[in-house]
């Protein structure tokens, strides 16, 4: 039976920004992803939830090109990007953050952002020596934009600190702002709220809503169901490496398989409130 057959259906989805069909991945015979199939609707926030070991991070790694899949296909819009290199996928507008923050520790906070823009004139040897004017003007514009983003994300004061000196929450913000600097159309956020304090969770939630309002498509691995309920339009449940169900969280709460595989007692969150 195809995973799609088991999918809980809801209202017709809008335009699809990211699609994966039958993605599989195993590590030395141990299956991590066993046929994940889902669509990520454009300009919406989609949550990818599931128990530990469901293959969520592996899937994010595959979708972003950091890892090759064994089977299946991936599309960004209409472009097939299955097993493309990470940088090629990024150049199509898909940016990601990591479950454990991966800041560029030796670079300053500002430099972390300045790495992100695509096709910088100053990254070519020819431009460095023969078109310094162009390089400088592009760099000036990038610096201004990076400083604006740092202001928005509350990291401006820390712009000249080495990224490795930031706290865990600040590193989460840095990762998101760095991805934003690359002008993404799709963002994969791997547990953006993990290990951050409740106030910062609200802030990050606000930033994610801001990005949605700017037309960015977001796919977010998240365990915090309160956050999922508050900000996500659509939920994909992954269990044992396959898509168990998709739909709105309220609908999924009525799905016995989902409850059994993941939600468990958490389904009572409404009554708990």
């Amino acid at each position, binding site marked *: 039976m195809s995973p799609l057959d088991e999918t809980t259906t809801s209202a017709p989805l809008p335009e699809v920004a990211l699609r994966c069909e039958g993605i599989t991945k195993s590590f030395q015979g141990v299956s991590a992803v066993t046929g994940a199939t889902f669509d990520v609707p454009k300009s919406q926030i989609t949550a990818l939830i599931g128990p530990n070991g469901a293959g969520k991070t592996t899937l994010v790694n595959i979708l972003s090109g950091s890892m090759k899949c064994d089977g299946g296909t991936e599309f960004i819009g209409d472009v097939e990007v299955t097993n493309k290199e990470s940088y090629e996928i990024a150049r199509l507008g898909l940016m990601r953050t*990591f479950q454990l923050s991966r800041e560029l520790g030796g670079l300053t906070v500002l430099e972390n952002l300045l790495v992100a823009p*695509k096709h910088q004139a100053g990254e070519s040897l020819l431009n460095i020596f023969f078109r310094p004017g162009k390089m400088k003007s592009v760099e000036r514009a990038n610096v201004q934009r990076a400083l604006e983003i740092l202001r928005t994300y509350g990291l401006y004061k820390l712009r*000249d600190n080495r990224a490795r000196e930031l706290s865990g929450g600040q590193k989460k913000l840095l990762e998101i702002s760095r991805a934003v600097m690359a002008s993404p159309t799709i963002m994969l956020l791997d547990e953006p709220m993990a290990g951050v304090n409740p106030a910062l969770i609200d802030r990050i939630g606000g930033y994610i809503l801001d990005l949605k309002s700017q037309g960015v498509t977001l796919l977010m691995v998240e365990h915090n169901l309160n956050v999922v309920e508050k900000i996500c339009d659509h939920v994909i449940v992954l269990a044992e490496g396959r898509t168990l169900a998709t739909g709105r969280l*309220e609908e999924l709460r009525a799905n016995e398989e989902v409850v059994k595989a993941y939600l468990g007692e958490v389904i009572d969150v409404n009554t708990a409130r």
Partner: protein
Amino acid sequence: MSAFWYYVFTLVFFLFDYFILAMGLNIQYGETGILNFAYIGFVAIGAYVTGAVSLPNSVGTGQHYILGWGLPFPVNLLIGGLTASAFAVIVALISLRRLRTDYLAMVLISLSLVLYDICNNFVPLFNGADGLYNVPEPMAKALHLNTNSFIWFFALVAGGISLIMWFVMSRITRSPLGRTLRAIRDDEVVAAALGKNVFRYQLTSMLIGSFYAGIGGGLLIQFGGSFNPTAWLPGETFVVFAVIIVGGVGNNWGLLIGALVVEVLLVHLPTFLPAIPGHAGLIEYIDAMLIGVLLMVMLWFRPQGLVPERLRRSPAEETTSRSTLDDFDLTEFESKIAAQSRVDSDEAGGRHEPA
């Protein structure tokens, strides 16, 4: 020229030459994170090719070597540098595409050993274990320089070349290209996730660094007039690593200090000291031990080197009315979350209460 000044200018030459070599290794290791344990192989290629294109045709010279074009300085030097860069392409294609960190280092040191054995044993290439000798002293005839005056002249030439190469390297390391290389050094997975073609940048770094290695090697053979396999034992790579670790990884000025401390004070200065009676060669062994101890001390107590990598600060600008992590207003975002929840609730037919 007195013996004293002969020694001084010899040391000055090695200071500048190792400054160039250290800049080349630094862009590969210090800026890009490529653990190039084959670096001395690129120096050797630069030296051999510079020597072989400077020497006349090998027939009748008593040596066996390829090329023999009799080219003048600095054309010969440039060819040596470019050949080392071309070799870097081959090495990069073999090693950089699939290998990382320690595996890459092992493959590179193996390549260095293979190259060493080829040069040492295949006599028609660069005269085997005897190496190349009688390499013409650049511009000595035109400027009527004798052996002594050539020493100070060429030490100053090396100084001028190192200054130009420092300027070029500074332009590169301060540019967005340098920043991208440092991003790859810090985390190549992140760099790739940001759209950077890591292999292309690593290849660029290898090309630049190997060019510097080739130029440094070319200067060595022209200064001494000879070059053979004893001059580039694979362990020599670690002397250049010691220069950049002691001076400061990722800092061009630190490399000059590192070259002074390691190459001049520890490697070459003691060779001018009188031998310890009854213990010929002991000084060299003490030298090697001192370098090892210095490396351990630096890595333990000051891993950033004597002159640490510079923090690249943002351009100065006004600092009024900016939100910071401390003064951030949560209200706006909380209201957005509440608004979103209301929208969700409406779309879902009011199946749940807004948060």
